[in-house]
């Protein structure tokens, strides 16, 4: 039923960061009050929703206090300062438990902050806590979390998506103003689609990976969940930028994404990937996406069919490369220096027991697959071949972007599926990422935003993909569509008055 507060005039937990900024600046509200409100809401709802693995109430209030003090002293404050945020539990937070939703790190407290976390602290953003996820980011439903179940706020019997399920839920259910997740094959965009919020994966290299627990090093990127496109742009301003501690982070100037937002469909050239649309897609999903495209076209955008033939092989390519890199990145969890250790008489036994007990089945499956793919006699046929197909996929996109500004497609073939529905069939689960995976393989920026609902009222995600380092083009298309279809913000307008489906006892 309805959770706690009435939906009426915008409650705090339904406000965007830029709206809250105005209230903070006008003195109508303190960061402490704001943070407290969110902490209370977490207390009320999260028992059911399972978005948070660790709530950092004391630290968050302390950070809020520090913001209020700075502002009272007349110090310049960041646009996102004082605004409570949630972080996916694969981002290192100094002094705050970071588990990657795995038993092997159940009690690990990092001695350092990820670069993006350092930026948040410098901006004085209160960190509410660490959110639930698929173990080591391997999954599309948050069902492989070792600790708790995460539920879709719009239908508690359904998954929120994954692997950044907790971060998506937090924003969708008003338990954080915005949040950070990570995306390797769709782990931000897909849960954003399932939970009805905005989620973005920047270009590979735009955001520092230093302090992000690595899953697949050449595919991982950190990105935001927000209630609207303006907030998304504000977060990009904060987290993007070169980091000398990350050799894969690019030394390119970061434009002011918020300042350059514009809503203008005329001149926008949109490509529709033929191979995507010809996949089996839920009728309601297809209708919502086509509706969005039609709206843009009616307002002056040009639509054009493009072909990305190699993307038909993207899933196979991804499931060779990602597990290979993951098997290597997870080898360091061996019980010697940190995390779980299961004692044994000798080191090989100790490592084996530690890893066997510390990792869940999906993680083990991918480690074994990855180890096999890299092993002697199989490397050329599997890993090397996949790396070559990856080049072809990248080239497909390059070709398409010579003729269009952005590509638009569904984020996922269906809306949120039911808990337990796909856990017995890994391949079926992997198919959920079929539209998002190619974007990671090519390192492109990709965003998902709500574009409607299905018969059951579940949100549908619209995916917008841009050329490398052209987040501005993606935001142009997104903002334009948002202003046309969801003027109060894509992440909340679509649910018009609906509250999350949580019982408050």
């Amino acid at each position, binding site marked *: 039923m309805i959770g706690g507060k009435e939906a009426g005039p915008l409650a705090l937990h339904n406000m965007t960061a830029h709206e809250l900024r105005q209230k903070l600046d006008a003195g109508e509200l303190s960061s402490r009050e704001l943070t407290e409100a969110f902490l209370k809401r977490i207390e009320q709802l999260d028992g059911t929703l399972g978005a948070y693995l660790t709530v950092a109430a004391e630290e968050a209030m302390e950070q809020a206090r520090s913001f209020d003090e700075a502002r009272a002293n007349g110090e310049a404050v960041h646009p996102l300062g004082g605004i409570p945020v949630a972080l996916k539990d694969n981002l290192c937070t100094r002094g705050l438990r970071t588990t990657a939703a795995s038993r092997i790190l159940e009690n690990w407290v990092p001695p350092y902050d990820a670069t993006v976390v350092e930026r948040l602290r410098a901006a004085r953003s209160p960190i509410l806590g660490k959110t639930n996820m698929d173990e080591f980011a391997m999954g599309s439903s948050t069902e492989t979390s070792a600790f708790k179940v995460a539920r879709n706020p719009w239908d508690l019997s359904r998954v929120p998506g994954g692997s950044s399920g907790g971060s998506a839920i937090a924003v969708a259910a008003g338990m954080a103003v915005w949040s950070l997740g990570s995306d390797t094959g769709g782990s931000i965009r897909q849960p954003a689609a399932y939970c009805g919020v905005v989620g973005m994966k920047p270009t590979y290299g735009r955001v520092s990976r230093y302090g*992000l627990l690595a899953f697949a090093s050449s595919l991982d990127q950190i990105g935001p969940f927000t209630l609207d496109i303006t907030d998304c742009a504000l977060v990009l301003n904060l987290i993007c930028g070169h980091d000398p501690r990350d050799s894969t982070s690019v030394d390119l100037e970061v434009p002011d994404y918020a300042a350059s937002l514009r809503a203008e469909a005329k001149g926008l050239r949109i490509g529709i990937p033929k191979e995507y649309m010809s996949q089996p897609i839920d009728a309601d999903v297809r209708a919502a996406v086509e509706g969005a495209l039609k709206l843009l076209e009616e307002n002056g955008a040009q639509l054009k069919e493009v072909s990305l033939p190699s993307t038909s092989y993207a899933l196979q390519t991804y499931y060779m490369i990602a597990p290979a890199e993951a098997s290597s990145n997870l*080898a360091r969890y061996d019980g010697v220096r940190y995390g779980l250790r299961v004692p044994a008489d000798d080191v090989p036994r100790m490592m084996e027991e530690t890893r066997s007990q510390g990792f869940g089945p999906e993680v083990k499956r991918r480690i074994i697959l990855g180890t096999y793919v890299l*092993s002697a006699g199989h490397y050329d046929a599997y890993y090397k071949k996949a790396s070559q197909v990856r080049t072809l996929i990248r080239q497909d996109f390059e070709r398409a972007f010579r003729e269009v500004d952005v590509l638009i497609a569904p984020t996922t073939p269906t809306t949120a599926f039911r808990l337990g529905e796909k856990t017995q069939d890994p391949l079926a689960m992997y198919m959920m990422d079929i539209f998002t995976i190619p974007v990671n393989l090519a390192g492109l920026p990709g965003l998902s935003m709500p574009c409607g609902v299905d018969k059951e009222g579940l949100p549908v995600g619209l995916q917008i993909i841009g050329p490398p380092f052209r987040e501005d083009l993606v935001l142009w298309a997104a903002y334009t569509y948002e202003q046309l279809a969801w003027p109060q913000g894509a992440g909340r307008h679509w649910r018009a008055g609906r509250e999350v489906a949580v019982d408050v006892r």
Partner: protein
Amino acid sequence: MSVKTGVEYEIVIGLEIHAELSTKSKVFCGCATTFGAPPNSLVCPVCLGLPGSLPVLNRQAVEYAIKAGLALNCEISRYSKFDRKQYFYPDLPKAYQISQYDLPLCRNGWVEFEFNGQVRRVGINRVHLEEEAGKSVHSGERLLGSEYSLIDYNRGGIALIEIVTKPDLRSPEEARVFLEQLRQILLFTGVSDVKMEEGSLRCDANISLRPKGSTAFGAKTEVKNLNSFRSVQRALEYEVQRQREVLESGGTLYQETRHWDENRGVTVAMRTKEEAHDYRYFPEPDLMPLVVDEAWVERLRAELPELPRAKQARFVEQYGLPRYDAEVLTTSPALADFFEACVAEYGQAKPVSNWIMGEFLRLLKAENKTVEEAQVSPKALADLLRLVDQGVINANVGKEVFEEMFRTGKEPGAIVKERGLEQISDAAALAAVVDQVIAANADAAERIRGGELKAMGFLVGQVMKQTGGKANPKLVQELLRERLLGG
């Protein structure tokens, strides 16, 4: 037991050498590379392999590796990249070592050196850059049998170059000599302090036997735990013997890895594994490839100092020194520089060479000091030599003065004055002492008069004793001769 008679075997040896580069910080992070710090005090998220950490490549390490390659006459790859070499071991924090697999930085070089009177050339397959692992201390005397081990990651992440030779070495002794030459070349480039005793230079050897005339390779044995140049030779000699015995008794050799036991003087088979290591190499996604253009290579080539063989040849040519002197004087760049600076001051080469090869090296060894630590300057030695030339002091006193110069850094002139060591060349004063000595040693004097000239030395010695060593020896000889032999 059948014996294969009449088969002569050829020894085929290749070496795999690791040298720690003397960069100030580690290869992928900013931790200092200081030797001997308290355990785990020079460690950061990167070299500890903490979750979320990422490597960033040290430019100096790349340049040192290129310089090493150039000194070994390698081609520098225009395009090279890093790879992960994966295996589980407690001193390996990420459970992989960042190394280079199929596209190393340097390839196809060679080293020329003299062995048994011949100039030999050994091919260098490759030189690549990689990172060190941590160090373990075992509860027992060695790893096998220890109940537990303690790991220190200070060393983890220090820059290493791996040098792989072609299997061109043909005897254990040659392998040792080659290794010494290689070490010297690296020392001269300044990229590593190459101290085997400190672990900044390590060597594994691969050895096989094949019938003379055959071009196929026999099964090779990898020999590990070679901690000194001597061990390299001894271990390989042992292996030649062992392998020969196996072959001659009709047995078969298999590819294996053996551990050299210095105390027992044998190699021991290491625990046999069901499969050889599969390192599952793949390109390191966290590090970007290197594109090294010609301009960069040429700049580094220009920075290379004169290398040992070239320097030795020049010393022979320019200073007219014997081969032997040139080799001794070039054992280290510092020594060679000292020699040249001194000759520049003094003007003649051979006397300087003699003093360095004699007194200077003796004192360096006795006091366990390096050239840089010795407090003698090239100019001071030159001054000393001039004092002897001018007859102010005699050669023996000169040695005493030199010792004090070595320890205190004082100027020779000051020492001579302070201790009143000027040579006594006053004939009248000496004559008195000579007469005294003759009188006190009538026996010896008689023998000399009688033709036993050997005893002259004894009497000279007595005069020297009486004069605190300061008598002018030539003059003493003359005076004795006058009195005892009549001129």
